[in-house]
């Protein structure tokens, strides 16, 4: 295939050629960045939470006014919840994964450290925390019965002891705090001036929200402190996935039966699956939106290419007829237009890649986006080459079907 005649033709149609190049470049740049953002959102939506999502129900209840009996009533609630047929375990906790509201604490490795090294979220756990959530302990051990304390005692400084001697942490947090070391037995400082010792490592456990960004998603600590229902108002109940609806109804009844001086928060009493879905709805709709825009952009670009290519074919009808009369095959005419499009697309893609990086730089500076990984560039390039070839095929076919006799006609 001779490229020189194509180039010299393009030189005579600079404006139209430049427009196609520009359109491809813009589309390439936008699509590369959009694809990157889409994959980022998809990663978020499919993140590992570390809990038995399909088996969990969350019930939220609050007291009207202060409840002097909140600790005793919490124990009664839990006993009643655990007695529901089909319930495997039930726990009370200060915060819930995907529940947004969270408790956080600065973590120091040494007591004398001026600044905390990071900010971690703190779950307060009772005896059934690990069994209910389905958290997987990969190193060390769970709390033993004598390690649990009442959270109220500690928070209200009863006995003037604010120490939390032991804790579970996630693997992500262990790797950040003690890189390359065995975290079991290591100490850190969080709530008090006395150290907390790591006794177990959980495979995964996410924060209730996205505080601190993706890298801090699993900066999670669990303290063996029994809370009561007025600290966040969260009961989690674990059951079989297919029994969730039935258990939810019964659990609601059980809690309502506990007295009419409390309000069951219906809109917050959901399955963990529903909570997760709500939590990620923003990311999900952004991913869809970006996807729709990408498709629309490709469509517009394809139609633009078809439009201009058809115009060129029409303009060069006579020229094509002459070439056919001089012995050019249909295939050669077809390939002529395909090659022409390939050249234009290549120039557009080259410019588009530079532009994609420029856009990414701006986004990185302003909106804490990550750096665009290099493999998005060939992906975007392949898409646009493919798109160009697809779009030019119909006009090129029409060109190839121009009969040689056209050359002999006058107009």
């Amino acid at each position, binding site marked *: 295939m001779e490229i020189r005649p194509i180039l010299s033709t393009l030189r005579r149609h600079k404006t139209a050629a430049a427009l196609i190049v520009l*359109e491809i470049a813009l589309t390439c740049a936008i699509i590369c960045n959009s694809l990157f953002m889409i994959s980022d959102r998809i990663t978020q939506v499919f993140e590992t939470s570390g809990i038995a999502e399909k088996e969990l129900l969350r019930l939220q209840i609050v007291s009207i006014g202060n409840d002097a009996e909140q600790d005793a009533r919490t124990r009664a609630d839990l006993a009643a919840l655990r007695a529901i047929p089909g319930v495997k375990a039930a726990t009370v906790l200060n915060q819930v994964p995907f529940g947004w509201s969270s408790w956080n604490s600065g973590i120091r490795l040494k007591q004398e450290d001026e600044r905390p090294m990071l900010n971690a979220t703190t779950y307060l756990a009772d005896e059934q925390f690990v069994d209910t959530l389905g958290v997987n302990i990969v190193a060390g051990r769970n709390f033993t019965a004598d390690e649990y304390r009442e959270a109220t005692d500690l928070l209200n400084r009863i006995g003037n002891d604010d120490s939390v001697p032991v804790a579970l942490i996630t693997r992500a947090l262990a790797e950040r705090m003690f890189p390359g070391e065995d975290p079991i037995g290591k100490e850190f400082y969080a709530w008090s001036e006395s150290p907390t010792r790591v006794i177990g490592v959980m495979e995964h456990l996410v924060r209730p929200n996205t505080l601190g960004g993706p890298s801090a998603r699993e900066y999670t600590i669990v303290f063996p402190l029994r809370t009561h229902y007025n600290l966040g108002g969260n009961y989690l109940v674990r059951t079989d996935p297919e029994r969730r609806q039935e258990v939810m109804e019964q659990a609601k009844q059980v809690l309502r039966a506990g007295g009419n001086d409390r309000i069951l928060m219906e809109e917050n009493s959901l399955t963990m699956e529903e909570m997760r879905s709500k939590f990620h709805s923003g990311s999900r709709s952004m991913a869809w939106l970006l996807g729709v825009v990408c498709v629309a952009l490709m469509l517009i670009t394809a*139609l633009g290419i078809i439009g201009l290519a058809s115009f060129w074919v029409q303009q060069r009808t006579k020229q094509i007829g002459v070439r056919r009369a001089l012995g050019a095959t249909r295939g050669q005419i077809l390939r002529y237009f395909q090659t022409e499009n390939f050249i234009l697309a290549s120039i557009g893609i080259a410019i588009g890649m530079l532009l994609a990086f420029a856009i990414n730089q701006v986004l990185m500076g302003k909106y804490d986006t990550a750096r665009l990984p290099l493999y998005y560039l060939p992906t975007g390039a392949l898409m646009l080459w493919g798109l160009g070839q697809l779009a030019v095929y119909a006009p090129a076919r029409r060109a190839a079907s121009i009969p040689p006799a056209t050359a002999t006609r006058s107009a």
Partner: protein
Amino acid sequence: MFSYYFNLALRSFRRDKALTALMVLAIALGIGACMTTLTVFRILSGDPIPTKSDRLFYVQMDAGGKQGFVPGEEPADQLTRFDSEALLREKRGLRQTMTTGGFVKISPEREGQVPFTTDARYATADFFAMFEVPMLYGSGWSHADDENRARTVVLSKEVNERLFGGANSVGQRVVLDRTEFTVAGVMDYWRPTPRFYDMTTDRFSESEGVFVPFSTSRDLNLDRQGNIDCWGDTGGDSTGPNAPCAWIQYWVELESASQAGAYRDYLANYSEQQRAAGRFERPTNVRLRNVMELLEHFRVVPNDVVMQLWLGFGFLLVCLVNTIGLLLAKFLRRGSEIGVRRALGASRRAIFAQCLVEAGTVGLFGGVLGLGLALLGLWGVRQQPASYASLAHLDGWMLLLTFVLALVASVLAGVLPAWRAMQVTPAMQLKSQ
């Protein structure tokens, strides 16, 4: 002349339906995407209280402990209760209020109604006048009520509907968290967007259902909501009068924006005194931001919305480049027609004008279709779970802007093709016939 060109444009559309439809569709998609994202952006970045946003100031000062101090860092987002109460006592502004978010349980006394929960706001008397809260019945409470920890409450229109069927309930009894309150006033519908007075909770949600004096809320230990940041030993009570915790939003209204400097000096002075007294351990670091500065500082418009706006404009740009290309093809394909017109005496300027009218006409159709797409897009936004979703409506200005944008964009897109079209030499075109 214009109507003649317009007529020619319509004729030309009829001749080349596919190409015209393609151009109209491209402009419409671009305009639709752009207007959808722009409308959302405009709603979220608007001035929530335009009459006095330059005179309302949000106070921040660094009350944190020595531990963790980084020179040059922003002071905490909120104030401590101690400092808020001190500033409030000194009353250096025209009006001032300390406020924080809360959560209460209402037990209706009417037959057949069940207890329900609602978001609450704890504030001091000036809140209502400062933020121009519209009142349906009654008014806010008085400074004396603040001092006496009065069991007084202002209801939102919605809560008043629910409890009293919308009747004038001033003086009526309401039971909040088992305590009897008297209704001082009922607000008319009020939803400043963004909800600027508290940056720590959902910034685009509805305003709260009940408003209670701050002092009363502490007296009864009502539930608190929103961020709280503690640094020293709280002694088990993080909302106590001396607790080292920042959880209060403090606002001051000045008589004019120009008094901000003097007030800032006053704050710096206060901060110095606290340091001298040993309460503040960090160097004086105060901030005084007016409403729009505050919204900017807290980046109130979500990143995704800004990103969508850029995406919308990027999309429009591609659509325009596309339209330029197609218009060029369209005009040049009619080279012979233009040649004939030129030969019959039409000036270059006339050809140029005719081409621009044709481009503008494409834009007009694109605008109409784009408007439809924008309405569809906004409907889509309203189906989202975001708290601002229900606000996504096109207003008169945005409607106008849709057409202006469509026309300007398409005429701009037409300039280059029209320029090329008017360069057509009549002789060449006529000869080739």
